[in-house]
Structure formats: C-alpha cells, structure tokens
C-alpha cells in the first residue's frame, strides 16, 4: 500500500489527491530539489545519498545525455560537449556574454531579426546538435523531477523554481521554458534570497529589512529585502558574477605553487592541486591548521602545513570585495547597516569562518547560519511550493478564507462523496472521476450537496443539474470528471465532463448562502453524534447498491444466455435472486452480503459456460497460425 506522511491538523489530503510539490534550486554550480514531508522541509537525495546535483550536462556523439557527477567526471576530457554553468547563458544572446574566447564551447548566435540586430538566445553546438541553454537546463530539471517522483511516489502537481533576484524577464522566461520542457508545472518562480528568508521563517517574523549574503561556488550575490504584510520586496541587489568559493581554492593553489617553487603545471597536476586546495579550505572551517600532501606527475612531493591565519590573510581581499558589494547594495537601498534586522547566509562558501566573521562585523550582528547554506534556498522554495499547491502548513501562513462545510455530490444509493473537504482554503479546485451505473446510460444527474454526514438526506442540497448525451457504453466504462471550483469570493462552480466525448455541463452555486454559524455548528455536531449510525447506514447502502448491480447483471445474463443452462440449473439461481431481493428490504447489511455471496456462488458454473461461449465465438473462423502470432 502507499506510504503516508503526517499532515498538519485538518490538512490530510484525500487519496489520489496528494498534492506533491517541490522546490528546486537550479544553481550555477549545483542544483537541488526539496519538498515538505511530515510538515518539515527536506532536501531529497539521490540513490547514493547525495543532495547536490552538479549542474553539468554532457551531450555524447551517440545523442545520449548525462547529467551531474557522471558528466562532471568527463568535463576535462570532453570540454566542448560538457556544458557547465549553463545558468550564465539563460536568456542571453552572444553579445551579453562578454569574453567568449575563454569558454570552450562552440557558440551559435541566435537568429537575427530583420533589422540585422542579434536577438534572442545563443545556442551551443554539441555532438548531439545545437542546444539552447533552455534545453540544457531542462536536462538538469528532468533528473531532479525523476528523483522527486521516485522519492515521493507520484506525479508532481508543480514546482517552485528559484532564480537570482537580478534575473530579468528574458532569463525568467527561459527558466520557465526549461521547466515546461522538463514536464514540470511551474507554480511560481521565486527569488533565491526570498527563498532563503522563507526557509528561516522570516516571513513569519516582524516586518523589517533583511540582507541575504549568497557566496556560492562561482558567484556572489547580496540582496536587501523588505518584508511587509507577508510579502518580500527586493530593495537592492549587488554582487560579482565571477567571485565564489572557487577563488578561495585558487588562492591556496597559488600559495602551494609559491611555497614549492613550481611554475605552470599540466592540466592533470593543476586539477590535483585544486582538489587538495579545496579539501584544505574545508578542513580549515573546523580546524586551526591542515596538512596538504600530494605527489605530482613529475615525482615532486608537496607537503605543507597551512594555518587558518595564513589562509585568512591570503583570502582577505576576496572577502573585502564582497563587503564592497554590500556597501553598494545598502547605498542603492538608501539604508545603513543599523537598518538591517537580520542577515541570512547562503552558499557553501559562507561556512568559512573568516566570511562569517567579516559579515557579522560589517552588520554588527551574528548572521543566521543554522540551516545548511547549500540547501537553504531549495528548502525555502519547497515551503513556498507546498503552500501554493494547497497543502497549507500551519495557521501562521497568510490568512485565507476557508470552506465551512464539505462540498460533495450524491452517488448511487444516496451516499455523499465529498470532493472539497471542509476547512479547505479558497480559492481551490478539486476534481474526481465517476462512472455510469447502468449499461447504455446516457445521462447522469449531478446533485451538489454540502455537509459532513454520510447520507445525502442528512446534508444540505445546493444544486442539481444533468449531464446529457453520454455515449452509450457498458456500465463503468464512461469516465465523467466532476470538477468543483471555489473562487476567492466563495463562489462554487461545478462542472461535469465525459472524458471520451468531451460533452460538458456545469452550474454555479454560492455555497455559504443561507447558512448561519449556528446551522454550521449543528451540522458539524450531528456528524460526530451520528457516527455509528452513519457507519451502518453507509455499509447498508453500499451493500444494497452492490446487490442491485449483481441482480441486474445476473438478470441480463439469464436473458441473453439462458439457453446455455441445463434443465434444473436455472431454478437455484432464480431462487437465490429472489432471496437476495427479499433481504434487500431488511436493513441488515450483513444479511444482504450473505445473500449476494450465495447468488454469486450459484452462478459460478453459469459464468464459466458464458465465458466458454464467448471464447468459442471469438475463435470461430480463425486459423491456428493466426492465433500463434500473438
């Protein structure tokens, strides 16, 4: 059976209506996907337990596509077809990129417009043909989508994807297009700093101005946000698109070269030293000193001890550069450091103590660092996605209207099927599929009811309408989708649509019309007081409905194929049909069930004969060879 997660009070979803939504941090260097499970935002790992997917896509000559670690591993062997940092190209033309000679890719400029001016997005020529940045990004998103669907066990209703606050319309549109291409429904694009602030719950904090300091692998962004009435407004952004954790690694690498009197190394040794430099940097977050040992391809041995103080002094001007951006951002926002209520740290490079210390000193307050800085953007995006998908998490969220009583329709036997449960926030829309009850049924009556009770007669009737023109089919073959939609003003619109033919009918109702608070309270109390009675009533109705269906089916079979029965075989069946009809008058669901079971047993032989007959009919006139081909 399906695995369940714990919901917030009053927010359980109905079966098959789970609204699986994820937040995606589509980063320059790494991408992540997160979701809200059991009320907590968590990042989803791949099957090897890794949360971060390197944003690297490789196109092989055989048209195969690899994404992530596998693509990263061959990056230096096949730089032309291995696209890294594609985010920098999103929604950009060649003229926007600057110095393309430093990049290994074969660019194709976008088709020019009539005026001869290059417009639109550049493309990359790969072994699998020309690819736009949108296509490349969609490959990353496809991997994350597959991971999320495997982890959550179902299709996603949508995703919130984060973008830098400075992204313009073209870059945002390109991100949306990439999501669409990956089969994701974008609930909303969310600014990365806003996502980080949401992850820290700042949207529930008191109003004020917050700073988000984001030092990633290769980019640095500072954003100044103002929170008012639950909405974040970006006041100013600044940053350096060529400054990140990689530059700190580079400083250590240069120091190693200098210490050992080495000059230019081959690509293999360069990579080796960079790997050691990165490890040393990470070590120095926890320790005061670290030892770096490596053997170069020349046979030279490197063995150095690096202290935190040395590392801090060699990387001091990198940190200073971020502080300059901070000053510019504050100036643009016309604010001073004293106006900043809180500082959020994002990006793996903010783990470095000298960064945290410098930022803390600059703002005169301790920055927020207790969430994983690599994951915080994805975590915030997941919280937003959960909210937008209708899985409201907690009452401290935006105050929204709720539906006071469940809305549903009448099904066979006078039972209520709830489609929108009470306390759903509005606006909302829910759909459920129903089918026909009788062979050749061409119309269906839709009775819209409101209330918590099991029986329609105990609920309030809101409206009735008919869906006509259903093509004649056997019972259960038609698929009729009934959609309940409640708009922000509380107006209910019910529509029914036969999925095969597309015929449709609908009605508009105002659900809360005429119900006072006292009436709503009474209807709720009734539903708990009558629990046991309702349970029996439901069981009885279900059995009666099933029994009627069985009687009808047997009657139909007798009329059609009664001649298959030997003398004396028909009577026991008819006797048990009569017995079942009699028990239907009694309000005893167990008796009905027993009688229906008895009729079922009695017709077993008859059913076998009918089956044999139809098989024989299907095989008549066919050669053995025709049958063997299947």
């Amino acid at each position, binding site marked *: *059976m*399906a*695995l*369940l*997660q*714990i*919901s*917030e*009070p*009053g*927010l*359980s979803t*109905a*079966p*098959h209506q789970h609204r699986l939504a994820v937040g995606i941090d589509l980063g320059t260097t790494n991408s992540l996907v997160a979701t809200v*499970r*059991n*009320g*907590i935002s968590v990042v*989803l*790992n791949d*099957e090897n337990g890794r949360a971060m997917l390197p944003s690297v896509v490789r196109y092989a000559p055989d048209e195969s596509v690899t994404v992530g670690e596998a693509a990263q591993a061959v990056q230096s062997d096949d730089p032309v077809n291995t696209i890294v940092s594609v985010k920098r190209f999103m929604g950009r033309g060649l003229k926007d990129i600057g110095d393309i000679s430093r990049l290994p890719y074969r660019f194709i400029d976008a088709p020019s417009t009539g005026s001869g001016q290059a417009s639109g997005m550049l493309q990359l020529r790969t072994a699998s043909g020309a690819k736009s940045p949108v296509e490349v990004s969609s490959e990353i998103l496809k991997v994350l989508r597959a*991971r999320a669907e*495997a*982890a*959550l*066990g179902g299709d996603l209703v949508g995703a919130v994807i984060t973008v830098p606050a400075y992204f313009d319309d073209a870059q945002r549109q390109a991100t949306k297009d990439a999501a669409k291409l990956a089969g994701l429904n974008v609930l909303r694009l969310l600014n990365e700093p806003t996502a980080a602030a949401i992850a820290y719950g700042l949207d529930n904090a008191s109003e004020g101005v917050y700073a988000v300091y984001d030092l990633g692998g290769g980019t640095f962004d500072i954003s100044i946000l103002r929170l008012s009435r639950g909405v974040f407004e970006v006041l100013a952004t600044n940053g350096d698109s060529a400054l990140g954790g990689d530059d700190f690694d580079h400083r250590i690498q240069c120091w190693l070269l200098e210490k050992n009197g080495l000059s230019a190394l081959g690509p293999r040794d360069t990579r080796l030293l960079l790997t050691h430099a990165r490890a040393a940097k990470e070590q120095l977050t926890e320790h005061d000193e670290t030892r770096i040992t490596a053997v170069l391809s020349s046979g030279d041995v490197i063995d150095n001890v690096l202290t935190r103080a040395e590392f801090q002094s060699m990387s001091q001007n990198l940190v200073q550069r971020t502080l300059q951006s901070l000053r510019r951002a504050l100036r643009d926002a016309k604010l001073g450091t004293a106006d900043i209520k809180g500082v959020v740290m994002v990006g793996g490079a903010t783990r470095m103590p000298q960064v945290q210390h410098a930022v803390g000193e600059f703002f005169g307050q301790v920055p927020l660092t207790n969430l994983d800085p690599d994951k915080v953007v994805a975590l915030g995006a997941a919280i937003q996605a959960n909210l937008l998908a209708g899985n409201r998490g907690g009452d401290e969220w935006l105050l929204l209207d709720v539906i006071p009583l469940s809305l549903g329709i009448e099904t066979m036997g006078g*039972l*209520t*099927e*709830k489609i929108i*449960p009470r306390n759903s926030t509005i606006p909302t829309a829910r759909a459920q599929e129903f089918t026909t009850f009788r062979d050749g049924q061409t119309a269906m009556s839709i009775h819209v009811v409101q209330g918590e009770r*099991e029986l329609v007669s105990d609920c309030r009737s809101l409206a009735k309408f008919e869906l006509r023109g259903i093509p004649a089919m056997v019972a259960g073959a038609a698929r009729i989708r009934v959609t309940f939609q409640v708009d922000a003003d509380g107006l209910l619109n019910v529509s029914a649509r036969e999925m095969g033919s597309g015929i449709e009918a609908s009605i508009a109702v105002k659900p809360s019309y005429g119900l006072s608070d006292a009436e709503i309270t009474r209807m709720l109390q009734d*539903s*708990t007081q009558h*629990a*046991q009675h*309702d*349970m029996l009533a*439901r*069981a009885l109705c*279900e059995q009666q409905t099933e029994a009627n269906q069985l009687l009808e089916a047997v009657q139909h079979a007798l009329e059609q194929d009664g001649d298959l029965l030997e003398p004396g075989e028909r009577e026991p069946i008819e006797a048990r049909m009569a017995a079942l009809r009699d028990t239907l008058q009694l309000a005893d669901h167990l008796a009905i069930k027993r009688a229906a079971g008895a009729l079922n047993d009695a017709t077993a032989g008859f059913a076998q004969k009918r089956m044999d007959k139809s098989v024989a009919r299907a095989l008549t006139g066919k050669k053995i060879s025709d049958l063997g081909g299947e």
Partner: protein
Amino acid sequence: MAITLTEKAAKHVRDFIAKRGKGVGLRIGVRTSGCSGMAYKLEFADAAESDDAQFVSHGVTVLVDPKSLAYIDGMELDYTREGLNEGFKFNNPNVKNQCGCGESFQV
C-alpha cells in the same frame, strides 16, 4: 482494543514532532472518500478534543475521534522504506478490501 505504533514508527513520530516544535501527539482517523470507500487521515495533533480516545504507544500519544475509532480499532502503524520513498503504513485488521493503491479501503 487500542491503536499501537511500532517502535520504528514511534521514533519517527517523536523526531517529527520535535523538529516541528509543537504538538501533543498524532491524530489518526478515517474519512469517507477515495476509490474504495474510506481513506486514512494522519496528522499532527496540537490539542486533544474532549471526545477523543487517547492511546499511548512507545511514548507517542495517539488521538482518535469517536467517529473513526470503529473503523480502525486494533490497528498498528508502522514506518517503512521502499526505494527512495519512505513513510507510514497502516496494518488495519478491520479492512476487508482495499483499492490497488491501498490509500482507501472498505470495512
């Protein structure tokens, strides 16, 4: 009769409640809906209602409204992992029939 949790399920519930930062326990119930009659409800509980039945299993308080208890009495809640997916699973002795996905059932 009672509602019980396996030790593993209880541990996860305790962790989730601790991370959530509030809640008196777990609310388990059923609702009428779904493809096969009834569907389970599994929620955090912030407060007990006056008519709730209360059970304590491995240190976790389980609240059940009287309307639901008839359908799920004697049930055990377990926590399992299936591939990348993990979550709670109900072992309900009252179930006679369930739909293919197991999310709804009949008694």
